[in-house]
């Protein structure tokens, strides 16, 4: 019986490895490499115990705890403690995402595309392909655990011993194992790969939220979340191994359930009923604007949450900033003191550049969606009906401008809300709002550039991101690396007055806005004149 169910599993393992011979190494190498790289940077960044302790102080607040988890070693903040506090949770989330995507790819996705049918018609056991997928992804996670663990140890940092490093790697691997099991389970329940990914991500998000709530309010709640277990290892501080063992046991149990369900169900079917969708479109959807909003809804909500969290996380460190700056030399190069303004206010200007540039990414994505639609031959449906091209591109420009504003607003709101909780002398919302909104014209220029590319030469529209990357590099790091002034002036962000340290310069802002408008008009004219591709 067993051989019947698992016939040819080994062949399928080799086949799965063959399919992912590039994908898996990229995931494993980049995750472990970045982990090791960051551990190395920590030692360079904070040279003395004092500096590390200064950072530890900024971490003692609920916002930070909610974001990265409770700091177990805050009283003796060694590099190791820092690593497990600041990096472990986020890296574990990335590993979870890797596992979710890999498992879905080899289970529900191949089933949906009909390749499973082809495989299953061969002398292959009923459980072979799922088992093979689990084996390969578990191996990938074990490889990740070992390379990360050994790599961290080889850095030779005093506070990062062999046991701790291996535990760090194992914590990542165990997270991967848990989400392999979860995804394998949902691949049986959901009828399509999007559902599988969606449900698995939902588990990940809920796990994160439960842990965040638990860590802030009641630590025992955190133990309801697998991510709470991972952080419960207290790597490099207390090195508990038992949460790892617990995670592996639970994962095995869930995997067995998944295998059992897989053996019972029909190929191609899902155990969860799919509910029928709407038979009619809402009034809102029936316009080009409504359509473009609907198509980007999920992405916009995700970005909005992300930007709010970004604001909150920056805001939560504002309280200890003055003390923090006093202790770290490197950051003094970044901000040369200006009389009459607190360091916090100066830091605010730097924050705003960063935040506004990050908010430009979703704004660019929203406008460039139009190019993707064209490439997939779907703009044709609109153009072939009584909709002018100006109206089509106009919808996307509108959504991009409103979206960009909303992102900026949400992050400033998060910054202000968290900041006013932790600061002794709070900065008023008006000042923060102003400091952020002065960057709108620069954002508009980036959007207008995307419009120009879409209108004239859509193939090059990726250059917008490159230009944004350049802007980030010269404007943010420019002062640190002492770039000449003109390099910053090549970016629209380099022309924005740094409120509140500088005055709001309406002339400059007006000029930036006029440039953005002109470029947009040229782009729209171009879009009206060219052939649609696809």
């Amino acid at each position, binding site marked *: 019986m067993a051989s019947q169910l698992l016939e040819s599993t080994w062949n399928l393992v080799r086949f799965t490895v063959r399919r992912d011979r590039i994908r898996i190494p990229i995931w494993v190498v980049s995750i472990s490499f970045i982990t090791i790289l960051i551990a190395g940077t920590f030692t360079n960044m904070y040279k003395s115990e004092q500096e590390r302790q200064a950072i530890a102080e900024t971490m003692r607040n609920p916002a930070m705890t909610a974001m990265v988890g409770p700091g177990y070693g805050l009283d003796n903040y060694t590099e190791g403690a820092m690593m497990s506090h600041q990096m472990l949770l986020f890296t574990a989330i990335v590993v979870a995402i890797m596992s979710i995507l890999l498992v879905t790819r080899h289970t529900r996705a191949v089933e949906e595309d009909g390749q499973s049918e082809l495989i299953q018609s061969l002398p292959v056991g009923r459980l072979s392909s799922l088992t093979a997928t689990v084996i390969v992804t578990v191996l990938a996670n074990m490889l990740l655990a070992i390379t990360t663990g050994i790599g961290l140890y080889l850095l030779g940092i005093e506070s990062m011993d062999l046991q701790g490093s291996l535990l760090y790697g194992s914590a990542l691997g165990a997270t991967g194992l848990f989400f392999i099991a979860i995804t394998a389970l949902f691949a049986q329940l959901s009828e399509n790969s999007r559902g599988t990914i969606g449900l698995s991500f939902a588990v990940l998000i809920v796990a994160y939220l439960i842990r965040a709530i638990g860590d802030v309010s009641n630590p025992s709640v955190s133990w309801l979340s697998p991510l709470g277990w991972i952080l419960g290892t207290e790597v490099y501080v207390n090195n508990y191994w038992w949460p790892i063992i617990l995670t592996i046991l639970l994962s095995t149990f869930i995997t067995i359930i998944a295998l059992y369900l897989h053996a019972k169900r029909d190929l191609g079917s899902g155990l969860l009923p799919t509910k029928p969708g709407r038979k009619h479109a809402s009034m809102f959807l029936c316009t080009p604007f409504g359509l473009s909003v609907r198509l980007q809804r999920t992405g916009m909500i995700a970005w909005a949450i992300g930007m709010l969290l970004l604001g909150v996380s920056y805001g939560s460190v504002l309280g200890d900033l003055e003390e923090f700056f006093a202790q770290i030399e490197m950051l003094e190069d970044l901000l040369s003191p200006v009389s009459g303004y607190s360091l916090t206010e100066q830091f605010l200007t730097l924050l705003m550049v960063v935040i506004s540039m990050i908010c430009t990414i979703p704004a660019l994505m929203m406008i460039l969606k139009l190019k993707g639609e064209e490439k997939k031959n779907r703009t044709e449906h609109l153009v072939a*009906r009584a909709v002018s091209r100006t109206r089509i591109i106009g919808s996307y420009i509108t959504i991009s401008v409103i979206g960009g504003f909303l992102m900026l607003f949400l992050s400033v709101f998060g910054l202000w809300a968290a900041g006013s909780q932790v600061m002794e002398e709070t900065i008023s919302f008006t000042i923060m709002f102003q400091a952020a909104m002065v960057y709108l014209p620069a954002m508009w220029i980036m959007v207008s550039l995307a419009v120009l590319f879409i209108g004239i030469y859509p193939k090059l529209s990726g250059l917008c991101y490159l230009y944004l990357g350049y802007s980030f590099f010269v404007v943010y790091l420019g002062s640190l690396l002492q770039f000449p002034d003109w390099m910053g002036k090549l970016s629209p962000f380099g022309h924005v007055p740094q409120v509140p340290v500088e005055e709001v310069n309406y002339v400059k802002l007006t000029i930036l806005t006029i440039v953005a408008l002109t470029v947009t008009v040229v782009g729209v004219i171009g879009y009206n004149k060219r052939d649609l591709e696809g």
Partner: protein
Amino acid sequence: MAILRTTNVTKKFGKFTALDGVNLEVNSGEIYGFIGPNGAGKSTTIRILLGIIKATSGEANVFGKDVWSDAVEIHKRLAYVPGDVNLWPNLTGGEVIDLLVKLRGRGNKRRREELIEKFDFDPSKKCRTYSKGNRQKVALVAAFSTEADLYILDEPTSGLDPLMEKVFQDCVLDAKNEGKSVLLSSHILSEVERLCDKVGIIRQGKMIETGTLQELRHLTRTNLVVETKHPIAKLSEVKGVYGVEVKNQEISFQVDTEELNQLIQYISQFGIVKLESAPPTLEDLFMRHYRTSTKESDLGAGGAR
């Protein structure tokens, strides 16, 4: 009255000439069959007519208006079904139908439900789950549930089963009976023969034949393979017979469909042992056009079936 007219429309993509002086004319109340092999320029022509791409030179008018500069006005009275229907994966079929109808103007709710019923289509599923045929149904329902004066259909039945093809043909004939015009691009000759009043054949970006079906009757020859007890005398001199070829006992040739009766009477004198007939495929037709410069007799019987 011409609803749609192109004069010398040429389209170049870089150095490649996709269309080379295309002339088309669709009159009011007419179903125009636009046929040609893949890559001949059918879709390019249609995309020009819809103002999706711009002609390099020449003139194209629909309802007497320029297809590029008056696109929006034209599209208010025009319905289009693309050959390759790409839909938004996260919207349902029903939502897309409503959207497509609304973007053109007003639709007929009752007609929409009727068509969904006729096409046996489930509008409550997400578009990502639809097969090619189902995606085509979305576009067809959206097109025929609006009151248009001109329907442009680009290989609309390539993914439909024969039953649905029939439903589609009924829709087209209904439109014709209401006095609407249709431009139907296809490479299914039987469909074109059944529906169209006029046919235009395009090949490598050039219109090589246009006319009513009556005028193109010579295109619809029947392929025959005959075996007789006695050799048939002077077969190639019989009216309407082309491409005689002798293989062992069998003779294969083509005959104009209108001469079929007389031909059968003639050859039956020689004692028929075997008789196979097959309509010419579109392929035969193109083969013929491709070789018009060479001898007619070069053409085989196109494989009797």
